[in-house]
C-alpha cells in the first residue's frame, strides 16, 4: 500500500546498492515550507563538520508542489539529495514514516521543512546518539516567538507526558535524531507523530529530550486553527488507548459499558419496584428514559469492546508484543 503510494524519482547512482551513508536527514514537506535550498545548505554545512557521508531524503506531498522545483534544482548539483513524491496527500505522519523507511543512514535525523531550530542543534543531537541513545528529540527552548497559543500546547504535552510516563514538551518540533534500528521498528501513523518520543519509549528505546535554540525565523509556531486542536485532542485519546488497552479493548469498553449498563439496570429495577408494589405511574417519568438509555448504551459499548477483541485475536499473529534487544547464542 505504502510502497505504491510513494513514487521514486530518479535516485543518484552513487548511492545505489548496499552503500550505507553515515547520516540520513528526512525532510517531510507536508504543511508548508520555507526556502528548502537554504535549509539544506545550513544543515549540510553543519553536518559536514562531522562527516561528508550523508544523504537528505525529501518527501513531498502533492499539495506542496511548489517545493518540487527548488528541490529538483538542488538535486541537480547535489548527489546526496534524494527526492520522493507522494501521489496523494497522506499527512505528516505518513510522510515521516515513508522517509524513515527509505533513509539508509546509521543515524537518521528528521527535519521540518521550515525553520524551527538552529543548525547547531545537530551537533548536540549527534553527540547523544553517539552516546548510545536511541531517540533524541528536541524542544525549542527558550522560545523567541510569541507566547500566544502556548497554553493549549502546554496542557497537551502535560497530559501526554502523564499518560505515556515520559516527559516531553515540544512534540511538533520536527528535529529529531533516531538510530536506524529504532527507525525501522517505530510505527508512526495518523496524527501520532507528535508522540514519537512516547511511542519510542513504549517500544523500549532510550529516549531523551534536549533544549534547542529556536531559529530566529521560526515565528509561526504555536498559532493553530481549532481543527488542529481537535485533531490533537483525538490523538491524545488515541495515545491513551494505545498505551493502556490496545491488546485488551474489552477491559476498557467492558468497564465503561458494564458501569453504564449497571446504572441503567438499577434505575429500571427501582422503577419496576415502584410500579409493581407502589402502583406509581411510569409514563411521566423521564427517569425511565434515562434508565433505558443507559442500559442499552452500556450493552452497545460492551458489544464494541467485543468487536475489538475479535480484531485483536484474529490479527494476533501479525502483531508483536515485544522488542528483542539482543540474542546471545
Amino acid at each position, binding site marked *: 500500500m505504502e510502497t505504491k503510494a510513494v513514487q521514486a524519482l530518479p535516485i543518484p547512482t552513487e548511492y545505489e546498492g548496499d552503500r550505507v551513508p553515515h547520516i540520513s536527514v528526512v525532510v517531510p514537506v507536508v504543511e508548508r515550507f520555507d526556502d528548502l535550498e537554504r535549509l539544506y545548505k545550513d544543515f549540510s554545512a553543519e553536518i559536514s563538520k562531522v562527516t561528508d557521508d550523508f544523504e537528505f531524503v525529501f518527501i513531498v506531498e502533492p499539495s506542496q508542489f511548489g517545493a518540487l522545483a527548488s528541490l529538483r534544482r538542488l538535486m541537480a548539483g547535489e548527489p546526496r539529495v534524494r527526492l520522493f513524491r507522494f501521489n496523494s496527500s497522506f499527512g505528516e505522519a505518513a510522510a515521516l514514516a515513508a522517509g524513515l523507511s527509505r533513509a539508509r543512514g546509521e543515524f537518521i535525523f528528521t527535519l521540518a521543512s521550515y525553520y524551527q531550530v538552529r543548525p547547531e542543534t545537530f551537533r548536540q543531537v549527534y553527540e547523544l546518539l553517539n552516546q548510545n541513545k536511541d531517540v533524541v528529540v528536541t524542544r525549542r527552548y527558550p522560545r523567541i516567538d510569541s507566547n500566544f497559543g502556548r497554553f493549549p500546547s502546554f496542557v497537551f504535552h502535560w497530559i501526554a507526558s502523564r499518560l505515556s510516563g515520559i516527559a516531553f514538551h515540544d512534540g511538533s518540533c520536527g528535529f529529531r535524531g533516531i538510530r536506524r534500528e529504532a527507525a525501522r521498528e517505530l510505527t508512526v501513523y495518523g496524527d501520532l507523530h507528535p508522540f514519537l518520543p512516547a511511542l519510542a519509549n513504549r517500544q523500549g528505546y532510550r529516549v531523551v529530550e534536549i533544549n534547542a535554540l529556536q531559529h530566529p525565523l521560526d515565528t509561526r509556531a504555536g498559532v493553530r486553527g481549532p481543527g488542529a486542536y481537535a485533531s490533537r485532542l483525538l490523538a491524545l485519546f488515541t495515545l491513551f488507548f494505545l498505551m493502556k488497552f490496545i491488546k485488551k479493548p474489552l477491559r476498557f469498553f*467492558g468497564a465503561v459499558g458494564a458501569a453504564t449498563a449497571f446504572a441503567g439496570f438499577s434505575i429500571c429495577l427501582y422503577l419496576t419496584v415502584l410500579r409493581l408494589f407502589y402502583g406509581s405511574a411510569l409514563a411521566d417519568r423521564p427517569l425511565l428514559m434515562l434508565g433505558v438509555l443507559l442500559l442499552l448504551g452500556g450493552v452497545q459499548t460492551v458489544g464494541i469492546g467485543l468487536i475489538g477483541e475479535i480484531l485483536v485475536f484474529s490479527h494476533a499473529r501479525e502483531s508483536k*508484543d515485544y522488542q528483542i534487544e539482543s540474542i546471545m547464542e
Partner: protein
Amino acid sequence: MMNLDARTVSLEHRLQTASFRKLSVVIPVYNEAENLEPLCAELEQAVGPLNIESEWIFVDDGSSDDSVARLRRLKHRFPAIRIVKLRRNFGQTAAMQAGFEKSAGDVVVSMDADLQNDPRDIPCLLKKLEEGYDLVCGWRRDRKDPWISRNLPSKMANWLIRRVIGTRIHDNGCSLKAYRGELVRMLRLYSDMHRFIAAVSAMSGARIGELIVTHRARKHGASKYGISRTFKVLSDLFALKLIARFGSKPLLGFFTLALPFGLPGFLLLVFVLWHRLGSSPQPMRVVNETVALLFIGTWCFLLLLGLIGEMAINATRPRLKDGAQLILEELKGGN
C-alpha cells in the same frame, strides 16, 4: 528432596524420549539473579540424563538487576543457555512468546525462574506428552504460597476458568508446562494470556493433559504478583469465552447477544400498535413506543456490529485455515 527416587529417570523412559529430537526450555526472567545458578544446576541434573539435545532459552524481561550478566557467566559452564534480552519489561506473556518464537525444539517446556518449579518434573512431563498429548500442564496441588493473597484467588480463578471454558485443568497459573513444538508454533500469546494457555490451546483442538508437579517455597527474590487483577481476569475470560464460541462466526454471536433486546422490543411494538390501531383505541403515552424503538435500535446496532466482526475475521481467514491443517497433520502423526 525425599521423592527424588521416584523421579530418577529410568532407562525405559530414556528410550521413550528418543522420539523427541530437541528440547527447548523457555524461562522468562525478571530480576531473578540469585536464582539463576541453582536453576541451571538443577536443569543440568534433570535434563542431562535424558539423552536429548536441549537448549535453555532465558528471556530477560528488562531486569534491572544483573540477571543478564550472571547468565552470560553461566553460559560458559552450561553451553545450552541461550539468552534473549528484551528492550524493556514487556510482561510475562510477551517474554514467554518471545522465547517460544526463538525456540527450535520439537518439544518445548516453559517454567518460572524463581525455583518454585522443580526441573526434575520435566522428564515426567515429557513422558506424559508422549502418551499422546499436545500440551501437559503442571498442577501445583500442594502449593507453597501465602493462602489468602495467592492460593485463594487462584483457586477461585481456576474454578471460574474451568466452568466458563470447560477445560478440566486445575491450575492454569502454573508456568511449568510441556508443549509439542507444533502447538507452540501455532500459539500466539498476547496481553496477559499466559493464564489461558490451556484454554486457547483447547480452542485450537489440542489434546491437553495434566500432571501433579512439586512446588517449592520462594527462597530468593520477591513475588511479582498481587491480588489486584480480578477485573482483568474476568474481562479477559469473558472475551476468550465469546471468541471461543463465536470467534469464527461473530454474526451468530451478536445475533444471540441481540436477541434479549430485539424480542422484547418487537413484542412491545406489537402490543402498542395493537392498542393504537385495534378495534377500540385506548389513550396511551408515547413512552411505550420510545422504549420499543430504543430496544429495536439496539438490536439493529448489535447485528451491524456482528457484520463488522465478520469483516474483521474474513480478512484473516487463511490463518484459521492454517490451524485446521495443522490439526489434521497431528492426527496423522499420532496414529
